[in-house]
């Protein structure tokens, strides 16, 4: 087996210096990668902030359309198929789709931007609508999940 022999008499040899440089270079590249990781983190932060604001917007918008909350079940914000319901529900859906598709990046691969509504009865027997909004962005690197319970309006 070849062994590196340190030249203890004449200082570093060129080979030694080059090997040191190579080792230093590897560390250097790893260090540079940290920089891009920082950029990635910043992007995620922004995406999370915007997604969070958007989910809050959706919940706020549902407050003025509580009687139609079940109609939002399985609505995928990415698509513009708005023929299901009319009125304020339609208007809300157009608004969300416009914001997410024009001001934000289009969804990547299997990213999900979806509203799910389930109806249940609470312990006192009152019907409620549970709304869950899930937004996955940047190829699922960022996931925001927000929910709220609305009274069921007949």
């Amino acid at each position, binding site marked *: 087996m070849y062994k590196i022999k340190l030249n*203890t*008499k*004449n*200082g570093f040899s*060129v080979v030694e*210096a080059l090997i040191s*440089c190579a080792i*230093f270079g590897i560390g*250097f590249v790893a*260090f*540079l990668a940290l*920089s891009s990781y*920082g*950029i990635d*983190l*910043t992007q995620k*932060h*922004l995406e999370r*902030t*915007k997604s969070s*604001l*958007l989910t*809050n*917007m959706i919940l*706020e*918008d549902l*407050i*003025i*359309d509580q009687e139609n909350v079940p109609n939002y079940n399985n609505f995928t914000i990415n698509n513009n198929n708005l023929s299901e319901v*009319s*009125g*304020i529900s*339609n*208007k809300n859906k157009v*608004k969300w789709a416009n*914001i997410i598709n024009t*001001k934000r990046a289009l969804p990547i691969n299997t990213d999900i931007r979806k509203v799910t509504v389930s109806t249940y009865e609470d312990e006192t027997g009152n019907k409620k609508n549970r709304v869950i909004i899930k937004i996955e962005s940047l190829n699922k690197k960022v996931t925001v999940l927000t929910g709220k319970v609305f009274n069921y309006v007949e």
Partner: protein
Amino acid sequence: MWNKKSGMTLVEVLIGLAVSSIIIAGSFYVTTQFSKQYQLSSDYIKVSQNARYALYLMKRDIRMAGYEDPESNYGNISSSFSIEDGGDTCCDKITLIYDKNKSTRVKLLYQVSDNELLKSEYQCEDDGSCSNIDENWKLIYEKETVSENVSNLQFLKHTKGGDALYFWSTDHGYDIHKIPVNTGLIESTWKIECCASGVDTQKGTGRSMTTDGINTFYFWIENKIYEVDISTGIQLTEWSVEITPRPGANIIYGDGHLYLWESSTIYKYNVKSKTKILEFNTEFSINGSNKSPRSGDGSGREIAYGNNELYLWWYYHEIAVFDTNSGSFKRYFRTDNVDKISQWQTSDGKSCQRSASMTYKDNNLYLIGSYLGGSGMYFAQLSKNGNRITNFRPRVCGDGGNCYKIENTCGDSHAIGNNNFYVWSNDEVYVYKLPFPGSNGNDISDTIFKNKIHIPCTAEYIPAGNCGGGGDISLRTLGFRSQQDGEGTRGRWSTNMVYIPAQINSANTNIQITIEMTKGYADNSNDIIESFDSSATIRNF
């Protein structure tokens, strides 16, 4: 160990220098990059935090707008918020009013100046009512910076059941179409329950519709009044009246009552008790001349209610005023003496008989009709005694300054709301600013035209092939549309439009907020421009 005998060779020194240089340059590059990245990340975080904080503050206050403490020392809040449009590039302002507690009513103003979001706070004077943004406020602090890096701030109001125009066309199975004025798009369409089949379009007339301006429509069809919820289109109730409207008949809501004008009789009904409480004849004599205002003489909305008085506009240019409590005649004046305005009719006198529209607001009458001595639509604003405030022939000016006048069509309607004057003619709604400018006798003004809402002819509402020439359901204004016979027994098809204001004290107003944050750098290489969207719903207190 250093070579103490012979030192370093030149080659060694050169290699050493080269390696050192690479290491120093690399280190410098890394340090610089890290520094830039750190700065950029910090700025992104700062921008994001600023945006979130600004949105948090504004959303919190928007949600509270209109809140009145149950034991408030102040009057009712009639106008809880106001948005001032600053254009698309920068920046809108919002003013909000609510009670912090029973003895503290605040007015908050958010605005942007020099890339800073500024907040001002006012408190109600002790003896003030502070029901709107203009009254009795004392400054607490002014233009305090709450966020930086704000390059644009936009508010967009979304309302349910309000700030919208509602169109009724008896031409299309009694459909009601709602168009919010901030979008100009048809938002919903529904039918009156009684007439969903739309079989007989000759039962009513477009002018037999009125509203309380808050949450109820009243339709007078055959011998019934149908009350319909404005927000949902759901029929609330129906009740009988003793008269059936013929084409040309009019109905108007005023102060808890409905006034039904059929031929030369007015019937006054109380909407709560649903009973007739007064009936009076509209015939009267003045200066030895007998007058007989009759509803069937026109195809427009020629009745207006204001301050316990009814105004009837008939036979081209005559207006009579009646007391709504006694039914007695009070005043008479003409619109042609100084106002140059007249009801309009088609040249054959049959297809559209004397179309006109009149509303009352704040002691003034607003009329649309035709221009005496010329062509084109004409606006007039009169005092309640018939004196001219202003009048003019409106123009529409498009891009490039191309202006044209609006031609009358049968059944033209108008509505007033939110400081705008909406005129529905054919398949367009023309939007003008109020107040009207003083005309000083000039005939034309185009400075108040704002925009127009084109009512689309889309397949969803209108069958293919019917869009042109006033198709069956193309939401065009229509008058009698059929040969008249006396009081319009053979007439049919008419249209009407009303404006419903936003219902600001209930949870049906939502404000969308878009805040754009910008952080610039000297070399513009990494300028941060990020837009954040959110919204807040004014709560129903």
